[in-house]
């Protein structure tokens, strides 16, 4: 029996080099098959062994149904409040259009859905619900926080034990699991109303959600949390997206909000575990 081609060379990432040419027939089949799944099953009937084109179509539709079903189920898990808000039937139909327009481009399913907020914002049938794109953004932020790197936040006591000069030179930034969302709508209230333990219930008849909010989404103690914060706190966390010294960070906050009690804002960020010390 002929043996497969094989050549081992380590490259810089320590993984073996791949040098085998793929069969052209196989590449063509796979490209056509994915077009059948994401565009139209009619494109691939010639690939399938069957008595007639209709039978081939039926077989391809099983795969299309399976792929769309899996992706819809995954997105329903990430965006449960959106699903409740628009109803299961509407959600499934909208997501089918989303999947067709944006087939997954990464191997990790946890990355899929990042551009759903933009899709919802441009989705004409939902034009009368301007708060929905931000609500979707909030659900995506919760998903990202859940999967973000686990980091040990900077402890207020550790900081207090340093000399004032060392304190000010401490380089810090926001934890990767701490995300900021600004909205013109009270999407945190909408989100809470859709939770199982909500007393108000999700009924939004007669209510207006228009109310500018700054929200922090973060992970702590095994849960993902959402909290409404002041514009000052949002500014501080926004400026801590990249590494910055404590001195520079506080100077920026002080410049933007001269009346602010800096100690109080910093204490809030540290007490909630939103900042991490960055060592060189």
């Amino acid at each position, binding site marked *: *029996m*002929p*043996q*497969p*081609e*094989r050549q*081992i060379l380590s490259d810089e*990432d320590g*993984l*073996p080099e*791949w040098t*085998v040419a*793929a*069969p*052209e*027939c*196989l*590449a063509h*089949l*796979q*490209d056509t*098959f*994915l077009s059948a*799944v*994401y565009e139209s099953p009619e494109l691939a009937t*010639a*690939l*399938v*062994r*069957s008595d007639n084109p209709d039978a*081939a179509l*039926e*077989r*391809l539709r*099983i*795969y299309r149904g*399976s*792929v769309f079903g*899996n*992706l819809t*189920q*995954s997105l329903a898990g990430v965006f449960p409040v959106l699903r409740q808000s628009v109803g299961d039937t509407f959600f499934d139909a909208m997501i089918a259009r989303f999947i067709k327009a944006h*087939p*997954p*481009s*990464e*191997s*990790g*399913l*946890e990355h*899929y859905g990042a551009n759903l907020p933009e899709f919802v914002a441009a989705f004409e049938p939902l034009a009368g619900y301007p708060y929905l794109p931000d609500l979707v953004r909030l659900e995506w932020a919760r998903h990202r926080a*859940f*999967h*973000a*790197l*686990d*980091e040990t936040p900077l402890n207020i006591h550790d900081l207090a034990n340093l000399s004032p000069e060392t304190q000010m030179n401490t380089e810090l930034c926001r934890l*990767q699991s701490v995300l900021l969302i600004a909205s013109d709508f009270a999407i945190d209230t909408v989100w809470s109303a859709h939770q199982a333990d909500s007393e108000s219930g999700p009924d939004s008849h007669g209510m207006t959600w228009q109310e500018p909010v700054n929200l922090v989404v973060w*992970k702590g103690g*095994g849960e993902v949390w959402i909290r409404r914060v002041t514009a000052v706190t949002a500014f501080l966390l926004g400026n801590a997206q990249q590494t910055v010294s404590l001195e520079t960070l506080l100077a920026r906050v002080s410049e933007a909000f001269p009346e602010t009690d800096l100690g109080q804002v910093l204490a809030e960020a540290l007490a909630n575990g939103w900042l991490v010390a960055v060592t060189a």
Partner: protein
Amino acid sequence: MTEAVTERLEGVGIGLRSAHYRELLARQPDLPWLEILTDNYLGEGGQPLSFLRQFATRYPLSFHCVGMSLGSAEAPDREYFRRLKRRVDEFRPVHVSDHLCWSSFHGRHSHDLLPMPYTATNARFFASKIQWAQDCLGRRILIENVSSYLTYAESSMEEWEFMIDIVRMADCDLLCDVNNIHVSAVNHGFDPLTYLQSLPAARVREIHLAGYEDQGTHLLDSHSRPVSEEVWALYRTALQRFGPVPTLIEWDNDLPALDDLLAEADKARQLLRGIHAAA
């Protein structure tokens, strides 16, 4: 290649699913091993990984992957394998497996297990990809047969013939999914016993059992039901042929209460023990 695995799995395990994390940790049922869907733990960190670290101190693990996409007609996804290798090196699972399938091509991912066209050329290509994955991970991997719903016009051999060829060429092991054999046998009209009898018994290191749905025109591998009577019967035959191979109950959709899942695992354990006692 060097056998990196010194520990062996025995008995009947269950698939670890997030809905059962807390109850499993609290109760710590007497299970010989757990299988994880590895792709859910390949991120930088996050809650699933911290749970996994807790389970790893209590249970031997089997890593079941869905993202190697070994049949894709392109180079392996190096980023995927970098992440996978890091996890394998950290946890040193007893088994690492993926499927006889492809999932993506040129930047479009199906996140599904799509069947291969069975030809000698494709078998050589698939075997090369397995060898690359094994060299990458520094260990032998297990390849699982998938359920399928179509046959390609260009296929020139049976699935089990393809499987036998790649095992021989790639020097890999097998994960025999008995439910998948039944589902495909019904969908394509072949005899499931022919499939079972053809596989190289010494290479079968793990068995999967699951439930399917009858859709009228075809059986769907849904992992949403108890194991069917036909599949239990086929499992008995598999145990007689392959010996007391470690077995997993897979359940992903309409997940039952943990006790129901453990009861299903217990049914498999009775059968496995019966065969073992008779041996």
